[in-house]
């Protein structure tokens, strides 16, 4: 693998310099066993909250070949304009990414005013922008049939928050 010339040039005890004593080996072995236990435990019974020992579950869920693929998006209003405009649901824009907001959908449905904090985060990140007076969460679905999109998409508003009216759940 490596050439024999790559040994130490120094004389005498240098041969031992690269060797570890019993104690140094012992703590490394114990640490390795602990890490293996942590990662195996995380993968077999743990969840995301165990990070960095959480299971490596990227793309691990099964998607039905005929289901629909749904993504969340947000739309916002500014003062004096009733139109809802699409805006990015990403960290640069609102401090959170799409998956983080999607993961809290039940809490948002319980307390739609949570959407108002996205307007505050946006103001913190982009103080020069016009303030948002309304934020609403929409879900867009792409329908799959036999692993291919049918071309059909559906959109519905889940919840909204306005500076004047507070949070409200939109009729399902």
């Amino acid at each position, binding site marked *: 693998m490596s050439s024999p010339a790559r040994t130490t040039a120094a004389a005498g005890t240098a041969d031992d310099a*690269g060797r570890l004593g019993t104690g140094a080996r012992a703590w490394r072995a114990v640490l*390795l066993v602990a890490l293996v236990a942590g990662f195996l435990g995380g993968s077999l019974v743990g969840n995301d*909250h165990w990070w960095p*020992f959480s*299971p490596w579950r990227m*793309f691990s869920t099964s998607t039905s070949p005929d289901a629909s693929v749904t993504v969340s998006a947000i739309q916002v209003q500014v003062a004096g304009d009733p139109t809802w405009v699409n805006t990015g649901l990403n960290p*640069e824009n609102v401090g959170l990414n799409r998956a983080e907001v999607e993961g809290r959908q039940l809490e948002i449905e319980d307390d739609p005013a949570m959407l108002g904090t996205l307007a505050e985060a946006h103001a913190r990140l982009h103080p020069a922008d016009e303030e948002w007076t309304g934020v609403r969460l929409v879900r867009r679905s792409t329908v799959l049939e036999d*692993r291919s999109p049918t071309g059909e998409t559906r959109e519905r508003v889940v919840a909204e928050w306005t500076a004047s009216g507070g949070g409200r759940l939109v009729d399902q």
Partner: protein
Amino acid sequence: MTPTPRRSRNSATIKDFAKAPQRLNAWLFTEMPLARVALLRVAVFAFVVIDVLKLHTSGYFHGAADPVWYKPLVIGEILSLPAATLLMVGLLKWGSVVFALAAMTGKAPRALGWATAICWTWYQYVAFAYGKVDHDRADFVIALFLLPTVGLAHLSDERKSQAAGFALRAVQLAAIATYFLSSIAKIRFGGWEWVNSATMARAVVRRGTWVSDWMLDVPFLLHAAQWGLFSAELLSPVIFFLSERWRRRMVLAWYLFHVATYAAITIAFYPHLVMMLAFLPLEEYRDTAVSRWRRWRAARENQTT
């Protein structure tokens, strides 16, 4: 067959079995070149700088999010880590950059290495404690915390050490564990039917590129790819039992897989790509590159004189 050779074969197996702990010990603490550790460290710390500045910035933006979105992870509950603020994420981000740049000099490898490890890991924690954990970054924590245990290692170091061998082994094990344990996660969360599900089609619908969009019209391709990926992940630990030549080919194959994944859905598990370098004789590659460059320069100078 006569009973005599059979008995001797049996006793040989038993002796082999009895030797297993010794062999494992020798394998974990194989002496490996310190220069390899030094080069891997440069790659790891350079990655930290690029990562916090360019690649994985969601932690920073969580500093602006309302604490109502903070969902402490287990480690954060144990250490009572608070919700992020813009000041805190600023300190963690720039702490990672400054310590990583300082660590790249090779000086004070333990203090600077662990300072980088703490800043980067905490910064990742902030990124993950708002509801979404990325599943490609845990193995890098191992590299950051274990590479400093080797102590001083110069780029031009010609010595080998067992501490270097252990750290490199641990990084290799963590990198391969990522593959193996993701196949376990697929069985656990997706079930055995994962291989026949539309997971890759879903990924392409959500994040497809011009390289991959056409595959939606040829669904059996993505279906076959799921079988291939799952098998490769489940069998990934085989890499430790291969000859050196095949081991390097396998590392190359994994790199090609990650290139293909990036082309198809623009997802790359960057920290993991750095981890896989632990399998390669980096110092030999460096020496070859340097000598080729010298020869090329000498040849050019001969031409001009």
